[in-house]
């Protein structure tokens, strides 16, 4: 596996920031529940991140462009809304 991927990481009992950093990744989005973050990490770190004792779940995620586009339009983040 090569490259970097976006991961959804669920910490076990607390924020998983340290585990993400140990895997060579970086937290890019924090959610309301501090145990849940989106992180960018090397794909090779997938196995290690999943088995880290401070991580309850780590799974690679991707952005569905069509669905995200609908969401962006809904909240007024799309370009057409900006222009009006």
């Amino acid at each position: 596996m090569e490259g970097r991927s976006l991961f959804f990481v669920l910490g076990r009992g607390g924020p998983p920031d340290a585990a993400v950093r140990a895997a060579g990744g970086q937290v890019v989005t924090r959610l309301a529940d501090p145990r849940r973050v989106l992180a960018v990490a090397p794909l090779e770190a997938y196995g290690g991140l999943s088995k880290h004792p401070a991580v309850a779940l780590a799974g690679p995620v991707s952005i569905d462009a069509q669905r995200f586009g609908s969401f962006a339009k809904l909240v007024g983040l799309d370009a057409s809304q900006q222009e009006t």
Partner: protein
Amino acid sequence: MASVGQELLDVPLPDMVTKLALGIAEAQRALDENSVETAQILADTTIEVIPAFTQTIAANGTITFEASDPVEMSLIQVGLNPTFYQFAEASIEVTMDIKTTTSSETNIKVSAKASVGFACWSASVRVDVSHNRKFQKEVRGTSRLFTKMVPVPPPPRIFPEITVIDNRVPAPPPGP
């Protein structure tokens, strides 16, 4: 001593292929389970979204903002999908280095002894022969397993179809 061809035939290739296939199947199952679990967590994780703001500019120039009630949306609704991976390629590489050496050594030692005395004589000949033959074989083997994984689209029915009906009243066109 087994021939080089026999050594190659003795490589447990069927066992290696079977174990590789079983390992891939097990890993694929774990990957799929993890992706499905991620999908469930993404569906359970919600964020509050404020779908609209209204900005009102009063006649005296004061500006007020009014936000509509927030709605909860799951991360899947927002557009985050679990990534599914699939093993696309697997290969086994076996390298063997076989070295055979045969050496033989023969030693012959001959000694003769004779003596002559009064009315008698004696003679003896002694021959020592030793023969050594040595066989040496070195077999070194390495195997390398290589797998390639690629992301694949999620199963088509894993996500519900989401239709957004936007009932917001369009803002009036700006005045002259």
